[in-house]
């Protein structure tokens, strides 16, 4: 399998461990990643707030880059997935399409709507398949109870994202089961991490993050895992503030999606960049008998 790799901004800078883990897992599963130094930021939902058509146009440009190479596009971030999908979907409105294309044409870019935008979670569960993943597991995450945390833009609006249920998805839990972990069922798994208002009203954002972590914890989660590096920032890098907001210690290790898969397929914690997390992952690793960092 060969895909245009769209890492997004965070995985190229402060979330490099996500990029490391993605490359490791894709190598192990024979997914060839083709890189394009011309991909821009997806706008992260903030450009959409400021200027909808601009957001659609910059993402149509990204899609056109993959299209020229004849490749579908792999995302590793729920928000990138949402914004790039939106560019595909909203173009169905002829008025929107005309405005976007009018901005792209003078710079010689034409997008013909042929690129499928797929998040790594979907590629793993649908294209690679759970059986194939199960057969490659070298270190089942047995005994590890993991709360999947989806990230809003991967799922919703469900009629536009065109994949899982917006409120009752199961792909991530299916994948966790395939790598030997025990998925935890909790309401917060499909809720917001607070990230979009981290800069607007930090206390409220932290309360939201804290509640989702508490929810996972009260349902017995030893760790959480997310397919979105922005959720990872809220849940891991800002977990100290979430603790303050909910007034109790949380101590919840937060994994990126390809990190939990990588652990099961035999990667070392070093190869997955686990030492870069702010909340130590050792307590979770100890449960699956992984070597310490």
């Amino acid at each position, binding site marked *: 399998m060969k895909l245009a790799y769209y890492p997004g901004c965070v995985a190229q800078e402060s979330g490099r461990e996500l990029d490391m883990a993605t490359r490791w897992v894709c190598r192990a599963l024979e997914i060839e990643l083709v890189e394009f130094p011309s991909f821009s930021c997806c*706008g992260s939902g*903030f450009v959409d707030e400021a200027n909808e058509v601009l957001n659609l146009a910059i993402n149509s440009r990204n899609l056109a880059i993959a299209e020229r190479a004849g490749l579908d596009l792999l995302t590793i971030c729920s928000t990138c997935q949402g914004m790039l999908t939106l560019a595909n979907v909203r173009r169905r409105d002829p008025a929107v399409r005309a*405005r976007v294309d009018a901005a792209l044409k003078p710079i010689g870019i034409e997008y013909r709507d042929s690129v499928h935008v797929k998040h790594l979670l979907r590629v793993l569960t649908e294209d690679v398949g759970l059986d194939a993943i199960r057969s490659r597991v070298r270190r089942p995450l047995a005994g590890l109870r993991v709360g999947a945390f989806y990230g809003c833009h991967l799922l919703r*609006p469900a009629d536009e994202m065109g994949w899982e249920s*917006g409120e009752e998805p199961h792909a991530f839990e299916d994948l966790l089961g395939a790598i030997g972990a025990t998925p935890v069922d909790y309401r917060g798994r499909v809720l917001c991490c607070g990230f979009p*208002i981290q800069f607007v009203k930090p206390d409220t954002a932290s*309360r939201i993050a804290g*509640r989702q972590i508490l929810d996972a914890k009260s349902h017995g989660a030893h760790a959480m895992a997310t397919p979105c590096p922005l959720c990872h920032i809220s849940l891991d890098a800002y977990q100290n503030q979430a603790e303050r907001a909910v007034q109790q210690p949380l101590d919840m290790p937060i994994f990126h999606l390809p990190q939990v898969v990588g652990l099961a397929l035999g990667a070392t914690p070093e190869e997955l960049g686990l030492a870069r997390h*702010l909340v130590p992952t050792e307590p979770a690793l100890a449960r699956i008998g992984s070597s310490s960092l």
Partner: protein
Amino acid sequence: MPADAISAKFDVRRWDAVAGGAPRYQRYELELAPHTPILSALLRIRDEVDPSLTLRYSCRSAICGSCAMQINSKSRLACETQVGPEMDRHGRIVVEPMRNQPVLRDLVVDQSPFWTQYDRIEPHLKLDPAHPMPEGRPTSMTPEQVERFKETPRCIACAACYSACPAVEADAAFPGPMALAKLYRFVVDPRDHATQDRLVRIQPNGLWLCLRCHLCTEACPKDVRPSERIRDLKEMAIAVQGGTERGSRHAIGFKENIEDRGLLSEAKLVRQTYGAAGMIGQLPQGLRIWRKKPEVLHKPRRIEGADELDRIYEALDRESEGAP
């Protein structure tokens, strides 16, 4: 009993604000056709099994908006949610009152918080005194003008969106999806004279607290798509007032930030939103993160074809400046 009847298990949250005590979940089991609406099942329980079960309903046809409640954690109208799919997915049907409003008894909530937020947006036309509506004649609107608010009048004020909203849950200041969707309806109404004032006043502790999680759009039984109308309001608010709020500054800052090199510069974004002085408050957290992730201070590389991005901005971002 229909041939395809299933044994439906209901776990209904029971609680009475007057009696107090701890809430409990009561199990009821009924043989039902899979297509039975959950409201019909609850009414059968009330009529045939337990007359003390309290719920609110009226039309049974998804018109009145009275029977919104949580069904297996989703905010839904009970009259248009069927028993079969819920049993298939969950093996039981957990029925709870709506969230974000105080419970009075069982499935009935006090909707005051929801209506207070609705009042806050002043949900009536504010006309230009110099151009009152023509007496006895309809005011004409073009099809294009009507098209702009084709969705919002469908709202039946069921409060399912308010119940589903995690921003409301975390911050009582947030007006909630329905109030903001209604506000949009007046902002784009060509007869309304208070557009600018409405857009200015809704921003502090209001508009920018939306998480754009789209849970309201999933919950809405009438496809009003509140989260998308809230996005529209944000863009219009920026057009009217620029970056006067942290939320609008952040959106504008992000837009300008990536125009520069094509990728996000994280440290620069903090400065754009908080200003140089405000950054001091962010220092301790920034240092904590920097120790593990020194790249937060990196300037990203400049993408190939960054000039293309410039041209796209030139074509689309200049034209949007100005009044909505």
